[in-house]
């Protein structure tokens, strides 16, 4: 009996103490594998739509190319369509996703090589310029109703956001494009040009059909409020071009990687972020119709300014 009492007396307090002192340990094993890559390959992106979205869209592609090309592929956002030529000329970028007219202008002054362009989900690798207005604005396809109105364009070096409306009015007999309207707003990106019309800052606008579709899908409330006044011919959508002085093996490797992107699981993810199915080869000849359009409005592509200033 005494033994039981003594054992109880000794064990109980200790067991309570041990309970009180117990500790939960968690061990986190961090696997931090970093592969250091040499060199940087910088690709510039035009602000064709919201710059924050642009960066998000191209990030997976940059990551994929970094691994595939074993170099640091960096995305550089540009704040204006006009800066791309300077960036190429100053060799601060190795390549860029050129807008069609941007490509035509840059190609006329310096050596750049088109590599590939994405095919949007749905199979479209081209786009059209669209002149549009808001329902109830009183404007129609008769350009006389556009006179002395406020127009929202993108930038002077964009096909959809400047060249096409200028060409369209020229075809309709308007030579003085700038003075035909009460005010021209250069919004700097296609979505901003669309928003300006729907915010009432402009009566009509001009932008890329692909971006219009995207904006309308984001804002279903305005889907039925848009009225298309004119549409351009199809031109190649933004094409990845590289500097002409880059090593041939780099160009080939980049082209091969992009053209086989849709065969690889990681590549498919990058394509999905871009809302694209695959990349296709692009040749200089595909831009000839745009060169013809520029010629028809009397534009000298060798002298036409990039209007880099904000």
């Amino acid at each position, binding site marked *: *009996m*005494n033994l*039981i*009492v003594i054992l*109880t*007396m000794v064990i*109980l*307090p200790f*067991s*309570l*103490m041990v*309970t*009180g002192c*117990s500790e*939960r340990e968690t061990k986190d094993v961090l696997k931090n594998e970093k592969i250091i890559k040499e060199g940087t390959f910088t690709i510039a992106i035009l*602000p064709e739509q*919201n*710059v*924050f979205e642009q*960066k*998000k869209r191209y990030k997976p592609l940059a990551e994929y190319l970094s691994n595939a090309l074993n170099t640091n592929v960096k*995305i*550089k*956002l*540009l*704040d*204006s369509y006009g*800066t791309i030529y300077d960036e190429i000329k100053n060799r601060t970028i190795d390549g860029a996703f050129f807008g069609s007219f941007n490509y035509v202008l840059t190609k006329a002054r310096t050596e750049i090589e088109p590599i590939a362009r994405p095919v949007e989900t749905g199979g479209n690798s081209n786009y059209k310029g669209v002149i549009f207005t808001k329902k109830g604005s009183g404007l129609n396809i008769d350009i006389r109703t556009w006179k002395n109105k406020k127009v929202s364009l993108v*930038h002077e070096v964009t096909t959809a956001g400047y060249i096409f409306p200028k060409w369209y009015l020229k075809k309709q007999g308007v030579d003085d494009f700038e003075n035909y309207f009460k005010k021209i*707003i*250069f*919004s*700097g*990106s296609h*979505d*901003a040009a669309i*928003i*300006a019309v729907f915010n009432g*800052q402009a009566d009509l606008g001009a932008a890329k059909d692909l971006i219009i579709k995207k904006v309308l899908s984001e804002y279903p409330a305005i889907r039925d409020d848009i009225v298309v006044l004119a549409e351009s011919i199809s031109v190649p959508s933004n094409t990845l071009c590289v500097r002409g002085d880059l090593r041939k093996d780099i160009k080939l490797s980049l082209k091969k990687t992009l053209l086989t992107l849709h065969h690889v699981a990681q590549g498919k993810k990058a394509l999905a972020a871009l809302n694209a199915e695959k990349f296709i080869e692009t040749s200089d000849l595909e831009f000839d119709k745009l060169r013809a359009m520029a010629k028809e409005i009397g534009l000298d592509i060798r002298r036409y300014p990039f209007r880099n200033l*904000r």
Partner: protein
Amino acid sequence: MKRKLVVGLGLVLFIFVISAMVVLKNLDNIVVNHRLINEQDIIIGKYNEMLFQMKGAQAELYRHQAGYTRNIDDLVDYIAAFDENMELLSRQYSSHLDDIACMQCHEKIKERLSLLRGIFTEIKRQIKDYKRDVSILITTNDSRQIKTLEDAATKRGNAITELLGTVRHAADKMREEIKNKRNILIGQSRSIIFFYYIFHYSFFYYYIYRCNQRYFRAYKFFN
């Protein structure tokens, strides 16, 4: 004597079981509270990071608008990082909204977390508008648009900073409350263990004393 001893031992055992249960329950709560404090520390760290990111973005925007730089990558990266942190915090708080363990002890926690969720929704709305405004602001050529959007971006930036300040303050308060609760539980457990020891050894000494008394009585009888 034997019956008294059994009753005494039973009482000691009973008090031991009760004390152990209370201490174990407290220990569980202390561990949970400690985890919450660590979580709050991370959250407060994230708020500070987000404040830095928002202010960094604002500074980059002013630099760009003033013409000191054409680089917009830093500005975009600040906001992207801000967005990531925002998502992380939203997920962190949302996970507690359905936490039954939390709801059992704190009636007001759901109300508080819902309030926080409301603030997060407001920040998300503001940041969405901020991104739209800033994106147009850095690309447009129209001076009237620039003026309007600059004002709007500054106002939104300040509103986001203020909202962040509010949630940071709330997180600080919650952290202090949890810390106080944890300290109370630690103190309670210590007291229970201490009083148990007092009771336990009192009984033990009493038992030894009684045994000794019997021994002394027997010794006296034989001598």
